[in-house]
């Protein structure tokens, strides 16, 4: 089986490459990258006018399996990933049960290989049951192949515990991904605290909750030398502190979601639970700081934070709705619309933040680059095709999205995993 992707613009930041060329794929690997390639009997995909990039990697997603299959499972979640142009996703540990031991990791890896459409990586819990009390068996999980540690969804409230967790994790060269929101300041809140929340009468989650949490954990990174990766930064102070930490040479990185780059708290005036998430969608000044952080390289990665819920769980009164929505199928379009089109990042920088950097951060040496001999994980996308988001057409089980009904410019056209086409023109074929 061979596949020839012809005439596209190869955007391959890991090699500093940006040129019109063909890619030939054979037996799951990249066979050649060059001009006017030909291959007898190969399937040919005409990528003229399209971007051909190393497969996009979402380093922060929730596939919900095991235990929460009414929201999502490996099959539906990876179909959504393929539809959105992702060839690999890293799924968070807040499942039922929590992914906090190696036996579970090994079993789930098998299951994801069986039913997954794209590649699935696992993030192990920092603490048993995400309770922030006892360390999970980090070493054992590292040997079982997890790519990072995180209690995502929960802030590790006890500073001494976080210190030990970071020290211990650093032995395994895996980063600690930090859901940074000081719980006591935000546990009752439902949206960003500010004039909009005051007018709506909704209890807020103030920016300072994230600011303080990020400050504490950067200090702990400095003390312990552990790699701290701040999940979904959403405040100007958090961006500024990560910038400062990087300037000092500390092992601190961070990521941002497409939704925090796209919306402001003004969008919550209709009390639409699709916009409810943690950390919350913040005000325009924060959004601008996030764009600035992307531009100057402070923010390493763009993520989906795909957090699907069954429709009936989100179809409730605003303050009763759970946080999160399904992001895999809109993330690339949202980034191209709200980051590329206004000129915040070049297309090369976008591929870097959505493929090259996530691969590097997760320690994936076989991804994030188009290179002869490497697995053929490839994403082809358009930067100018306009489409209207229709949540009912999603592959994910979680049919809720703040992007529903909006027009996005830019769309994944072809997703190739190990040389096999898993999505073509929006249709998932695996």
């Amino acid at each position, binding site marked *: 089986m061979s596949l020839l992707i012809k005439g596209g613009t190869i955007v391959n930041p890991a090699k500093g490459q940006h040129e019109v060329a063909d890619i030939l794929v054979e037996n799951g690997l990249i066979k050649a990258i060059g001009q006017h390639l030909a291959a007898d009997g190969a399937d040919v995909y005409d990528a003229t006018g399209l971007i051909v990039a190393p497969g996009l990697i979402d380093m922060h997603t929730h596939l919900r399996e095991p235990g929460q299959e009414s929201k999502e499972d490996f099959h539906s979640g990876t179909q959504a990933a393929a539809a959105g142009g992702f060839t690999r996703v890293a799924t968070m540990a807040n499942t039922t049960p929590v992914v906090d031991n190696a036996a579970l990791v090994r079993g789930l890896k098998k299951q994801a290989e069986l039913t997954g459409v794209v590649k699935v990586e696992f993030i192990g819990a920092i603490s048993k049951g995400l309770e922030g009390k006892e360390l999970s068996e980090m070493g054992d999980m590292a040997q079982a192949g997890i790519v990072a540690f995180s209690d995502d969804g929960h802030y590790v409230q006890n500073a001494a515990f976080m210190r030990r967790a970071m020290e211990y994790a650093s032995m395994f060269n895996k980063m600690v991904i930090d859901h940074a929101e000081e719980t006591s300041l935000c546990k009752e809140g439902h949206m960003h605290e*500010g*004039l909009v929340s*005051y*007018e*709506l*009468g*909704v209890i807020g989650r103030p920016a300072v909750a994230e600011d303080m949490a990020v400050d504490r954990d950067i200090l702990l990174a400095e003390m312990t030398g552990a790699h701290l990766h701040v999940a979904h930064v959403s405040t100007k102070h958090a961006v500024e502190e990560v910038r400062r930490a990087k300037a000092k040479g500390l092992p601190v990185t961070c990521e941002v979601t497409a939704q925090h780059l796209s919306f402001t708290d003004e969008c919550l005036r*209709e*009390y639409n639970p699709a916009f409810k998430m943690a950390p919350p969608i913040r005000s325009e000044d924060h959004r601008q700081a996030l764009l600035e952080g992307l531009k100057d390289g402070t923010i390493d990665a763009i993520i989906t934070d795909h957090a699907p819920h069954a429709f*009936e769980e989100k*179809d*409730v*009164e*605003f*303050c*009763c709705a759970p946080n999160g929505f399904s992001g895999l199928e809109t993330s690339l379009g949202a980034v191209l619309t709200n980051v590329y089109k206004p000129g915040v990042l070049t297309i090369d920088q976008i591929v870097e933040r959505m493929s090259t950097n996530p691969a590097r951060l997760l320690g994936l040496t076989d991804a994030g680059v188009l290179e002869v001999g490497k697995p053929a994980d490839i994403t082809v996308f358009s930067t100018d095709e306009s489409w209207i988001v229709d949540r009912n057409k999603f592959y994910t089980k979680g049919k809720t999205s703040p992007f529903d009904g909006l027009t996005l410019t830019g769309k994944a056209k072809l997703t190739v995993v190990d040389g096999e086409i898993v999505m073509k023109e929006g249709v998932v074929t695996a």
Partner: protein
Amino acid sequence: MGTVNLKGRSLLGLEHVSKEEIELILRVAKKMKKVVLSDDKKIPYLKGKSIVNLFMEPSTRTRSSFELAGKYLGADVINITPSGSSMVKGESFRDTLLTVSYMGTDAIVMRHKAEGAPLYATKCVKPIIVNAGDGAHEHPTQALLDMYSILERKGSLEGLKVVIAGDIMHSRVARSDIYGMTKMGADIHLVGPRTLVYPELEKMGVTVHHDIREALEGADVVNVLRIQLERIHSALYPTNREYARIFGINKEVLKAAKKDVMILHPGPMNRGLEIAPDVAYSDESMIQEQVRNGVSVRMAVLYLTIHGGDGSELAD
């Protein structure tokens, strides 16, 4: 006159209601008050209509005044409360609304702890939705009856200094008062502890104070909000004693206000906490009259949204 018609409209709050619409409601309420004060309180403009009072939170005055308002207008009115409904069996709010709306219901009057629930209801079902209080968001009929009571005594809201005192952050009455009275030309001042009144609220076109005397200086109207006693546990103020001493409305601090100041309170009162008993029952107090006006205003709202028109058919 005549161009404004509220027929078929839901009343979710006063933020998106115009001055002309507020004036229409208050004008009709005046006619309704005559009915409330008369011997024969039945005017059957809503005969053959049905109204469901869906109260997901406790209420005495709002629920009973909506119920009487509907009945005086000849509508059939039923009450649903969560403890007596399928909500306790885990039925979702959407399904409760659907069930209620498919019984030939023309309007649903709802109170709900969740801000935005009435807006959500309009997206779920067809009947007219009248918001009887959604969390800390809006309570439009309370603000309408506050304005009606002020008009009754002062003739106009234009240029009046209206002080709203107490727990603004958690008050749906405060927000509706701010939206409504600002449109009617009043000068709104908020006063309360820094934990319950945020300076950022000034962006809503009001003045924020943390000193009761400063706020009351030259006031025409004082609307005293209920302090929710459970707030002590969230460290929003130290003790009831301290609150009463520093922020309570009593005869002494009212000396800063105008001589003919009028006192409002949406109830239920904590006498001796946010309001001194001698103030609550003074000549300046309109608190009992507010309750009567509540029925008139709610009659006007139900009449205008369900029946429509401009009220010219009603006797003056």
